[in-house]
């Protein structure tokens, strides 16, 4: 057992070492155009994995929150000429506050209704950003957004930006992994499995959901800041319905209940979009087919595919609770007529 853990630790360190030195041996294109965006989109997908895979809340508003952090940074630094650190704090605060407010509306609903409400909220913000000129800059959005400078280097210099993304992504990854083992994270997983039961143990389920939604919003906002530095501009296109759904596609491709999967999914998504678009104009079809193949053949996503042998074992062990889940449904239906 301990040998297994140390193998895993060794493997993790190896991967981390390769990633950290990537700008030294990787091509400029892969460092700048593939891995960097994969890392910050991965953070956005991670916020969705936390909500959907571990909290049972499939939110379509994560990219809206991601975008609002960018708008916050842009409005403060460009429109109001504030220094970058004000932009960072303001962008994070605005997006997290938006997540809290979205949460207030959404957390009392479940399943498809939760999905629809978060989609509606995302569309409201999109329409607002598209039509409001005074703050959001209307259809054009906000241009000329400059990333912070670090010791005379602009943070968007290729290798530096990559390393900043990597550090942020690793911290987010470790943070979420840690969170899932805390009382808060355990209760969140219990919310996913059975909210009613959790209430019967003394937990305030709606409050718990709201806290998780706000926290995931903060995570998406962190990704959003990196995103807006990368693009140097933000416009309503960044938060349109396609983007909102893309992050769900990323999370599902990676594995909805997998913390690593968020980044794997983002990498796969960016590779497919970049390469398919150089072969064919119909790269959306390619993404659609990839998505379909993954949902059909590996419902636990790429991370499930990578861990196939482990997965088979787990599935065999998990068969029992799946059977009892079906029973629960029957029982719940049966309970109605008592």
């Amino acid at each position: 057992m301990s040998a297994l853990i140390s193998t895993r630790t060794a493997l993790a360190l190896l991967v981390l070492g390769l990633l950290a030195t990537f700008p030294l041996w990787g091509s400029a294109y892969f460092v700048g155009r593939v891995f960097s965006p994969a890392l910050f989109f991965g953070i956005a997908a991670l916020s969705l994995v936390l909500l959907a895979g571990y909290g049972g809340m499939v939110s379509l508003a994560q990219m809206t929150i991601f975008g609002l952090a960018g708008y916050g940074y842009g409005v403060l630094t460009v429109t109001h000429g504030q220094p970058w650190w004000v932009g960072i704090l303001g962008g994070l605060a605005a997006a997290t506050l938006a997540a809290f407010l979205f949460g207030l509306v959404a957390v009392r609903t479940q399943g498809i209704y939760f999905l629809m409400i978060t989609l509606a909220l995302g569309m409201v913000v999109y329409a607002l950003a598209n039509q409001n000129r005074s703050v959001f800059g209307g259809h054009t959005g906000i241009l000329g957004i400059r990333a912070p400078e670090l010791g005379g280097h602009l943070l968007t210099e290729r290798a530096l930006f990559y390393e900043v993304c990597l550090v942020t992504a690793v911290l987010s990854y470790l943070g979420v992994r840690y969170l899932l083992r805390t009382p808060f994270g355990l209760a969140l997983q219990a919310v996913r499995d059975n909210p009613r039961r959790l209430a019967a143990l003394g937990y305030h389920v709606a409050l718990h959901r709201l806290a998780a939604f706000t926290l995931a919003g903060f995570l998406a906002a962190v990704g959003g800041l990196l995103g807006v530095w990368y693009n140097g501009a933000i416009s309503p296109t960044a938060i349109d319905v396609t983007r909102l759904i893309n992050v769900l596609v990323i999370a599902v491709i990676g594995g909805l209940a997998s913390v690593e999967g968020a980044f794997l999914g983002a990498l796969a998504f960016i590779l497919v979009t970049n390469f398919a678009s150089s072969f064919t104009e119909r790269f959306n079809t390619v993404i659609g087919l990839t998505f379909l193949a993954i949902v059909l053949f590996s419902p636990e996503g790429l991370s499930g595919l990578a861990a196939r042998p482990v997965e088979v074992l787990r599935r065999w062990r998990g068969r029992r609770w799946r059977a009892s889940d079906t029973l629960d449904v029957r029982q719940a239906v049966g309970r109605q007529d008592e």
Partner: protein
Amino acid sequence: MVTVQATTAQAIGHALELQGVSRRFGGLRAVQDVSLSLAPGERRAIIGPNGAGKTTLFNVIAGDLRPTSGTIRFYGDDITHLPPHDRVRRGIARTYQTPLVFPRLSVLDNLYLAVRGVRPRRMSLRRPRASDAEMVRARQLAEQVGLGDAIHALAGALAHGQQRQLELGMALAADPKLLLLDEPAAGLSPGERELLAGLLLGLDPGMTILLVEHDMDVAFRVVRQVTVMHEGRVIAEGTPEEISADEVVQQVYLGSRHD
């Protein structure tokens, strides 16, 4: 109708007191005008045929459902409108007809959550250590309900009987003053029933227990009072012996209904 007053109840006050509690689902009157009182430490079973309203009554007491009318008092406090999580924190714990555990969490995590639920810092962001009071208590509970060897197993991978044991452990984590057990013996093998009866008889005698049960063997060994429900109403109350001999009850169970 047989009525037996718990004479000590007047002196100490009731642990649980229901006055004229009703619950309707549209046109269906699932529970009608039920009044019930339990003295502290009393052990009582609610029995009755399917559809008698036992589980609905249970859900009303636990707070999963609000009564359409009537009041519920717990040690004198009106709890009629309290949400379920507040009732647990006051000391009302329950189990369900089908064991409800968190299948993708381990036995220990299930119990730990249950312990944490009734204590402060439920939303703590500090990772628990094995030496934490709550973790120690969770392990004790696992031992108490006979799952000491299975603490790292996923709850969803446990056999049905073990899930019942786990659920009981989760209910006991609240150190409840009132324990509500919804058909605790359902689906258990004779051996497991024996284990369950032993577990229940071994609980703190000060703990008030109200249970719904079809299985008379287990129920009548554990309780001293029985309430019989039929079509949403209480039709008889008494000791197990009195109930076994009651004519109305026999009619209900052996059939004079025209279905």
